């Protein structure tokens, strides 16, 4: 069958997002998973865990703040960032994300401020903590939906695993951050398990997702070719490497780099896919032929 295009020009508009958005995927993920861990740790009322809780809350609060900053920075009209909360539009993952981020920011801050209080305020703080955990779980995963809910073939075809992948990567990145920056071996111990699970899941999810995306060869192409392919592979290698090395700082560094690179790889893959009219054409033809 002939394979026509219009002078090989793109069918789709490519994303206008800057580096800030993939960076936000990472930071948001980090903050999100931190808040979940905090909420979990909050359940165990031990001083050791209190330290962990506070540290995670700090990561959550700062992370949420930085996230908001990155998002606003990327807007065409930053002054209008509040419009994100103008409507409630369930069809728009970005709108949902905005509410989640707002919620996570508010509750985690509340938890952080009230966490040490006693009495009613203290209990309110606790409640905030658990809610923040729930929001955090959303924050760490919704970006996967955000990316999947597009017309960009490679992103669309990654939809079944992208949120899981981002979730895993969020966990691993938290682990890595602790490996690198936290002296307290015990806290590290707790997070280590958390992170290691994440790394394993991240690697697994990545492989399966690439396979799924490539069920139409042309669609999965960006994972194997070009700059996006390079990023994608490097991300996997770095993450895997973080399991092998001994030095904990190195482990942390590799892990962070890995999950950061992962987000940029996904971003680049999308752009490459949007530039390739055949990706869309093949995907749609394939779907048309095999119902």
């Amino acid at each position, binding site marked *: 069958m002939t394979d026509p295009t219009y002078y090989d020009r793109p069918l789709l508009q490519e994303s206008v997002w800057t580096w800030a958005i993939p960076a936000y995927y990472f930071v948001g993920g980090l903050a999100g998973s931190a808040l979940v861990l905090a909420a979990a740790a909050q359940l165990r009322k031990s001083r050791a865990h209190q330290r962990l809780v506070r540290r995670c809350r700090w990561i959550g609060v700062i992370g949420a703040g930085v996230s908001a900053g990155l998002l606003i920075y990327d807007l065409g*009209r930053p*002054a*209008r960032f*509040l*419009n994100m*909360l*103008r*409507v*409630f*539009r*369930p*069809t728009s993952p970005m709108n949902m994300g905005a509410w989640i981020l707002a919620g996570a920011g508010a509750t985690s801050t509340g938890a952080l401020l009230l966490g040490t209080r006693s009495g009613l305020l203290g209990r309110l703080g606790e409640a905030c903590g658990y809610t923040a955990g729930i929001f955090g779980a959303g924050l760490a995963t919704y970006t996967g939906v955000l990316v999947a809910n597009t017309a960009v073939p490679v992103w669309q075809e990654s939809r079944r695993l992208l949120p899981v992948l981002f979730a895993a990567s969020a966990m691993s990145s938290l682990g890595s951050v602790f490996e690198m920056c936290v002296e307290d071996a015990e806290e590290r111990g707790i997070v280590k398990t958390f992170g290691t699970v994440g790394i394993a899941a991240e690697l697994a999810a990545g492989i399966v997702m690439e396979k799924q995306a490539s069920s139409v060869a042309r669609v999965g192409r960006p994972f194997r070719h070009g700059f996006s392919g390079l990023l994608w592979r490097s991300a996997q290698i770095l993450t895997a490497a973080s399991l092998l090395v001994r030095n904990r700082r190195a482990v942390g560094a590799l892990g962070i780099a890995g999950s950061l690179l992962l987000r940029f790889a996904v971003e680049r893959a999308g752009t490459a896919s949007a530039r390739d009219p055949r990706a869309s054409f093949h995907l749609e033809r394939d779907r048309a032929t095999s119902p």
Partner: protein
Amino acid sequence: MSQSNGFSPLRWPVLRQLQRGDAKGLDKSAVSPQTESLAARTKSADKVVDSVCPYCGVGCAQLVYVKNDKIIDIEGDPASPVSNGCLCPKGAATFQLVTGAHRVSDVLYRRPHGTKWEKIPLAKAMDMVAARVKKTRDEHWEEADEKGNPLHRTLAIAHLGGATLDNEENYLIKKLFTGLGIVQVENQARI
């Protein structure tokens, strides 16, 4: 800034969604004040003037919308049997042709051997041109040829242009130049 986020608590669309029980917020609830007051700019025109496309010879009818002595829109006149309101890309660009920044609004003068344009007053320029015409005409007048055939003319002055001008303008050009004894009057009809 001011017109940014339509975010006055009372007009907050989310509240409207709640009132309407609109779970998705895809249409009415999300309408902004500016959208509600949206209107075609031609609605506010002070006058609409009948005109004709200045490009090719088909003669498509145009309507020129004017507000505060400024042209705000030019489009086809649907009543025309010639064009039924249609315009080609050139005709559709007439607005830019007549209002564009490319148009010069000063009289410019380049003196002999000059290397730049100089602005001069319109009246002065007209006087200078009239003087040139007289001088050239007087110096290069031909009353009759060697055989005594009548000439009554000057070949030293010529004119070019007319196909883009109005009939009335062509009439005055031909009338005045003929009166001056200028014969080399030409236009795009031959170009």
